[in-house]
């Protein structure tokens, strides 16, 4: 019989078998009756002689079946029925797992999107480049061209630069946009194809200013041009220069760096039209290029490429000692470069915490399962007595666990996909092109499946020991009564584990919050409260270096005339701590003639500021004087340095006043004042030297007005806007409070705190459910005992003690261990949150209070139940 027909014949087969066995027993009975037994006795004897018909039937069937698959299917059906019978348990279990697996899936998705797959271009894993700020020397355009020509490791090398704050005029609505200036081969190196129109290529470049084309990103085309397909060929004005839109980039392409998404791309040869003063062909200009990158040639390793790039860099430094300085660098995966370190650490921390949540959830479910298995002791005993093997029973319990975990996993992954999609379109800080691209892919689903299987296994094995040792006779005789003797059960251990994990999570959240509070109030070197800023880029309206200065003076004066304004000033470029922008200069001793970086005294951050800036920003002057309008281009050069600079170079604050220094461009300056130290690029940086130059002696086109006032920010902004319009109606102005500008810097810490807060909350939820479960269970099991105690005259306190002593003791043990673990995890937390010091009394007290509160909450209902026990009714029933 082939197996196909055997399926159809099987029914007939089994019927035959049944009948055959019945006939056999009948025949035996008749035989015995002929020998003189009574009918009843004969039948009984016949059955005894036959053996267990059910078992025989099953074994006969097993010959024909694929026993494993069939019994698995039977298990699944049985499990579904069982789960349906206790909907509360099933729901609680599935929801717990959905949350835990969902959290893990989200974190994995973030890790995948940010770290494993930072760029959505073909063969992104072979795309390597330099990192901004690494000192490799390839941030200048001529150096880039030499690298491109002389390297042996890359197929081709492209470069790009940030161009933030470009005034785009499409004819109706001028606005501020952000772009990448890219080399002609950028799109070819990335190996992407345009979605609409075409890209510009190297062939379009014929020297500086020769390629007035732009390529829009998909997102910008969608939001600004409303998917209008006729944009190709349209001419727009960037800072008054005409550019033609030649195409739209494909949907996945959002630039080549993490977190930052430009609105469009323009050729780097036209960069100085939108980024005036940025001389492309000056070898010493290290602001022309942000990063260079390319695909490694097949067969070339990263180490070889590193050696190659560093050799070229060192060579350039030798050839052009005045313009080029090279530090040995390692190439990094493109896209992961500038923000990789903190992002990686943060994600690693998150994954760890999410894994802890899953562990806690498994512990929770494990103890629930164990309780359930204990309750079904009678059923298990019966099944064992009927001849089932223990393996079979265990397999059925496992099937239940797997079903729950697969259901939880499916729901969790669904929720996580929705959340990830939301995150990837979220713009956390409006105005900054900040972006978190996390698009779920197949890896996420596999990961969720693996998690579901592993967690199902973990909490499924909890009742194993119990079932294996079950003695059917005892259980059927005595009923499934609670075991009194055991000291420490598996469930106790699980509960302690859960509580410990919860305590760790709560500790981390508290530490994060505390760290955030601290960082908000630490000394920045300026006072951001009550300060309004206005970003004004005069290049957008056709000013040049000569006409800019008087205009800027007029702007400052105009701001001063607004009622309620206490002081106003200006700083070129960006104020400190905004967008992690920084501008460094090399400073030399007065007598130095060979102005190469190797000879420099110190390399401070450089800010060009107006008179009145220090008052407006709230930066305290420690010695000397501030700038005055007399410190202009006709007066001798002056500078104000910060305390760190003064101490390091001149030994003391007062010793610095009156001393002379030489700057990179050869100008001599005299130190006329010393300002307080501050933070300039990030909150976690070590103290850096800084230098302030009067902006009249070093003018620029893009600057921020800084206005201090206690007036309501809305009104102030309106007043400032109208003053600016009076001065120049066609100039776009970006108005934000300084605190808002600081958001970028605080963003990581805020996100971290939020994430930790969510995880801490989930951990707390799980702990509460766990404690509640155990407390309720133990109370319900011991209801009779409690009733007797009360009947014998126990006071409320004693009853409560009897009922809840155990869970509460476990709570204390768990909290203590969790707290200690959390304190030990300082290092991990410090990665994530600035100034995270768990040895903070606020944190310790907070955690203890939180765990007490949780314990109280969880045991409230069981406690009430224990107290409301009526001994009479209890003792009457069984």
């Amino acid at each position: 019989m082939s197996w196909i027909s055997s399926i159809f014949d099987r029914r007939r087969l089994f019927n035959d078998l049944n009948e055959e066995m019945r006939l056999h027993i009948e025949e035996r009975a008749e035989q015995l009756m002929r020998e003189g037994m009574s009918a009843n006795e004969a039948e009984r004897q016949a059955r005894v002689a036959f053996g267990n018909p059910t078992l025989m039937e099953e074994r006969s069937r097993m010959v024909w079946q694929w026993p494993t698959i069939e019994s698995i299917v039977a298990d699944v059906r049985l499990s579904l029925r069982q789960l349906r019978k206790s909907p509360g348990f099933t729901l609680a279990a599935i929801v717990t797992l959905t949350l835990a697996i969902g959290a893990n899936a989200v974190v994995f998705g973030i890790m995948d999107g940010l770290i494993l797959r930072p760029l959505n271009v073909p063969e992104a894993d072979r795309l390597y480049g330099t990192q901004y700020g690494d000192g490799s020397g390839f941030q200048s355009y001529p150096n880039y061209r030499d690298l491109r020509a002389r390297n042996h490791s890359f197929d081709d090398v492209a470069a790009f630069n940030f161009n933030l704050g470009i005034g785009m005029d499409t004819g109706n609505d001028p606005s501020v946009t952000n772009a990448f200036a890219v080399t002609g081969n950028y799109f070819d190196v990335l190996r992407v194809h345009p979605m609409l129109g075409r890209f510009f290529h190297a062939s379009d470049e014929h020297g500086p200013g020769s390629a007035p084309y732009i390529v829009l990103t998909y997102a910008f085309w969608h939001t600004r041009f409303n998917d209008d397909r006729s944009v190709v060929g349209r001419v727009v004005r960037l800072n008054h220069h005409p550019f033609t839109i030649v195409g739209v980039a494909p949907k996945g392409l959002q630039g080549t760096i993490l977190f930052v998404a430009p609105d469009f791309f323009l050729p780097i040869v036209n960069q100085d039209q939108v980024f005036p003063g940025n001389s492309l062909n000056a070898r010493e200009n290290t602001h022309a290029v942000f990063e260079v990158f390319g695909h490694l040639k097949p067969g070339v390793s990263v180490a070889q490429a590193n050696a190659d790039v560093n050799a070229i860099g060192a060579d350039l430094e030798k050839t052009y000692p005045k313009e080029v300085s090279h530090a040995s660098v390692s190439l990094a995966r493109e896209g992961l470069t500038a923000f990789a370190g903190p992002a990686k650490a943060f994600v690693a921390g998150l994954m760890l915490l999410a894994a802890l949540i899953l562990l806690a959830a498994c512990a929770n479910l494990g103890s629930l399962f164990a309780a359930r298995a204990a309750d079904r002791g009678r059923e298990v005993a019966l099944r064992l007595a009927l001849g089932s093997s223990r393996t079979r029973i265990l397999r059925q319990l496992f099937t239940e666990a797997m079903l729950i975990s697969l259901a939880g996993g499916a729901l969790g992954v669904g929720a996580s996909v929705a959340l990830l999609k939301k995150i990837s379109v979220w713009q956390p800080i409006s105005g900054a092109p900040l972006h978190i691209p996390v698009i779920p892919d197949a890896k996420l689903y596999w990961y969720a499946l693996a998690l579901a299987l592993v967690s199902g296994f973990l909490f499924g094995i909890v009742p194993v020991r119990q079932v294996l040792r079950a003695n059917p006779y005892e259980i059927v005789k005595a009923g499934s009564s609670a075991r009194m003797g055991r000291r420490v059960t598996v469930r106790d251990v699980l509960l302690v584990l859960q509580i410990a994990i919860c305590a760790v999570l709560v500790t981390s959240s508290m530490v994060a919050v505390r760290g955030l509070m601290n960082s908000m109030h630490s000394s920045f070197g300026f006072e951001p409260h009550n300060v309004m800023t206005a970003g004004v880029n005069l290049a957008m309206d056709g000013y040049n270096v000569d006409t800019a200065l008087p205009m800027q003076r007029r702007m400052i004066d105009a701001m001063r005339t607004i009622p309620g304004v206490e002081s106003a000033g200006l700083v070129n470029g960006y104020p400190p701590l905004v967008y992690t922008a920084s501008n460094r200069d090399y400073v030399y001793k007065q007598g130095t003639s060979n102005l190469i970086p190797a000879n420099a005294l110190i390399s401070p951050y450089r800010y060009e500021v107006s008179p009145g800036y220090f008052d407006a920003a709230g930066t305290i002057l420690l010695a000397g004087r501030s700038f005055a309008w007399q410190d202009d281009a006709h007066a001798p050069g002056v500078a104000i340095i910060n305390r760190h600079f003064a101490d390091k170079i001149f030994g003391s604050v007062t010793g610095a006043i009156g001393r002379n220094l030489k700057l990179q461009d050869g100008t001599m300056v005299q130190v006329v004042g010393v300002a307080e130290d501050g933070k300039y690029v990030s909150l976690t940086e070590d103290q850096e030297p800084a230098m302030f130059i009067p902006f009249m002696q070093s003018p620029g086109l893009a600057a921020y007005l800084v206005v201090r006032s206690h007036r309501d920010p809305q009104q102030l902004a309106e007043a400032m806007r109208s003053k600016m319009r009076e001065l120049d109606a066609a100039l776009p102005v970006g108005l934000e409070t300084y605190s808002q500008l600081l958001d970028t810097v605080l963003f990581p810490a805020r996100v971290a705190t939020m994430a930790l807060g969510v995880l801490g909350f989930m951990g707390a939820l799980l702990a509460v459910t766990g404690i509640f479960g155990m407390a309720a269970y133990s109370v319900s099991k011991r209801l009779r005992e409690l009733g007797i105690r009360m009947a014998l005259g126990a006071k409320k306190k004693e009853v409560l003690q009897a009922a809840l002593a155990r869970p509460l003791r476990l709570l204390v043990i768990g909290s203590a261990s969790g707290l200690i673990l959390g304190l030990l995890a300082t290092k991990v937390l410090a990665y994530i949150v600035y100034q995270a010091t768990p040895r903070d009394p606020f944190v310790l007290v907070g955690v203890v209070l939180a765990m007490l509160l949780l314990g109280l909450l969880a045991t409230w209902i069981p406690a009430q139940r224990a107290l409301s026990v009526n001994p009479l009714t209890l003792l009457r029933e069984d």
Partner: protein
Amino acid sequence: MTNSTPRDLFPGALEMMILESLRRQPAHGYALVQSIQQRSNNLLQVEEGSLYPALQRLLKSRLVKAEWGVSSTNRKVRTYQITAAGLRHLEQQISSFERMFEGIALVLKPGEAPAS
């Protein structure tokens, strides 16, 4: 009461004896049990029901075939009959069983020639 079956017979013994009985004469389940018990002088106590899984195994391997019919005593019975393949299988089994028996006997009683 027995829980799991403690085998008195080694695996395959039951099948071998069934095949041998069927070789002599086709029979149905009950008759087979009788025949085996009789011929072994009641030395072998076989649980009657355990015959049926064995018969199914033999059916599956096509060493026997089965047919519904009516017995001599006018009962509805399913009669089993050995097939050619079954005969061949039986020969192999018997010879390997005899070899095994000889070996065991030699080990247990060294020096004595086995009863042939």
